[in-house]
């Protein structure tokens, strides 16, 4: 755990807040896709920390050792954070979770982000470019107001496309409507994505069909963020022991994720996003009801444990 200090509080557009926090331990160690868990509890009414994926880091220069998070106000935790001003102190845990794996050799990478879920992709884009990879990007949202920093995407990506469901900015439609076209045009070898679950599932389907590698940063409600509470699980497929059939297990998205190999996640056809304020207990505020796995033989579990 560390104590950070707010350096700046800005707005991105009319919806998104940005906090740049001086947190040397975390800023030096964090990798793209990892997250921090922030105490948002000035009183005892809301006890749990809120997780945020890291949007940007500054390891060098005048803002060295700072991390930046972005969020929209969804519930009491984010409402509290939105009141913090310069010099406010912040209680953080991190960096937490397993981040994105960067390509081993120079590659054409395509970043696909939806709404606030695009946050970790900006940090990833910086790192990919630093390592000499080609970065292309598709950014989508419900409408133009919900696009996260579309201006910066133009600077970061060789080829970029913007989609909005209402057509207010860019192409009218969803990121998956233009995905195949962009992949073909850019010779995409690996896709990185984060956003609402139905979008992730659709991106995963397209990547599987075309045999393109995929890394997804998933979202689940988490209480602890460091692997003990077992609430943030995702159904994933794993190689069975000693050559046996693959098995499906609930993997913790806080420690075994939040980034998973897209081909390993068992996507649910009935996934529906949680739109309520409860959603702020996930790193980008967009978790879902996940697919149910059959219980083990004879297992009837108690309500609370």
């Amino acid at each position: 755990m560390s104590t950070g200090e707010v350096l700046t509080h800005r707005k991105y557009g009319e919806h998104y807040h940005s906090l740049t926090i001086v947190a040397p331990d975390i800023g030096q160690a964090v990798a793209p896709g990892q997250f921090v868990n922030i105490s948002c509890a000035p009183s005892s009414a809301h006890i749990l920390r809120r997780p945020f994926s890291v949007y940007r880091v500054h390891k060098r220069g005048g803002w060295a050792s700072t991390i930046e998070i972005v969020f929209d106000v969804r519930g009491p935790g984010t409402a509290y954070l939105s009141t913090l001003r310069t010099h406010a102190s912040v209680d953080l845990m991190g960096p937490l979770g397993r981040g994105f794996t960067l390509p081993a050799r120079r590659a054409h990478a395509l970043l696909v982000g939806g709404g606030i879920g695009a946050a970790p992709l900006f940090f990833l884009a910086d790192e990919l470019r630093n390592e000499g990879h080609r970065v292309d990007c598709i950014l989508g949202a419900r409408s133009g107001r919900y696009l996260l920093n579309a201006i910066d995407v133009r600077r970061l990506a060789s080829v970029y496309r913007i989609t909005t469901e209402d057509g207010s900015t860019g192409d009218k439609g969803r990121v998956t409507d233009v995905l195949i076209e962009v992949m073909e045009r850019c010779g995409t070898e690996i896709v990185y994505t984060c956003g609402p679950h139905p979008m992730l599932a659709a991106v995963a389907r397209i990547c599987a069909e075309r045999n393109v590698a995929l890394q997804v940063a998933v979202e689940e409600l988490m209480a602890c963020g460091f692997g003990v509470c077992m609430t943030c699980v995702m159904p994933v497929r794993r190689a069975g022991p000693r050559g046996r059939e693959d098995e499906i297990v609930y993997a913790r998205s806080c420690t075994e994720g939040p980034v998973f190999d897209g081909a390993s996640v068992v996507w649910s056809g009935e996934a529906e996003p949680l739109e309520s304020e409860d959603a702020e207990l996930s790193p980008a505020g967009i978790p879902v009801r996940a697919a149910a796995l059959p219980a083990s033989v004879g297992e009837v579990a108690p309500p609370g444990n």
Partner: protein
Amino acid sequence: MLGPVSLTGPVLVASGTFGAGREASRFVDLRRLGGVIVKSMTLVPWRGKPTPRMCETPSGMLNAIGIQNKGVDHFITEDLPWLTRQGATVIASIAGNTVEEFVKVADKLRTGGRGVAAVEVNISCPNLEDRSDMFAHSARGTAAVVAGVKESLPRVPVFAKLSPNVTSLAEIAGAALDAGADGLSLINTVFGMAIDVEAMRPKLAGVVGGLSGPAIRPIAVRAVHEVHRAFPGAPIIGQGGIAGPRDALELVLAGAAAVAVGTANFVVPRLPVRVNEGIAEYMAARGVERVADLVGAVRLDEVAAASLEAGTP
């Protein structure tokens, strides 16, 4: 001391809030804990329930996880040796759906559980042989599990973790003690439910969940007090909503010989150490030498005692 168990301190970590210590050891030295009550283990691995498994509630949280765990064999081969190497005091929490399952887990611990300081029996599990009502909800179910586990592990101290969701806690505590329990853990989570009114659906996939956190602390204090008055000789591990030293002291004054920090570990994994320090400061300030001198030391004048006897809050 906690009955027959020698602890390194009075503050433990509650089952299900600390895994088997590995993840939290990044934040806290396990030797500075009174003991680690590990996540409940079952005879075979349990997958647990679908998500959402939790939601936040006023001063607490509701969870329905379903004892997702890798099974007793994994505990014996992986977790226990690791915990022992860290110098942690280990209390093994066991769970099952039948008395036979509990006994089989206990049998495995008898042969492979060398170094386990005590066993906590998590009887807040549906009893498949009794229309799926929980063992902890009846004196008979509680006694059957405790007697079976104790017979398998006659030399290991056994604690029964009781559910507060019952009419007469003292009756069930008595059944556990008569069946051979060396002590009691009080309390497990309180049943609750939350509904997303926009979606008009339960917030948890499991519909009903266990409420934990500071919201349930007064329930825990009452439960410990009630059981301690009924069975003053029975060592109690008090747990339920501890978020600081004074909360732990409430449970001790109510009658707990040791305490376990639960949900607060999710927020501040080092909290048990701070609670331990806070208890020591409280004792030093009052010239109290042993925690035992505070156990059940809440003062009740005649009026208060009479009001308790009358049973009306």
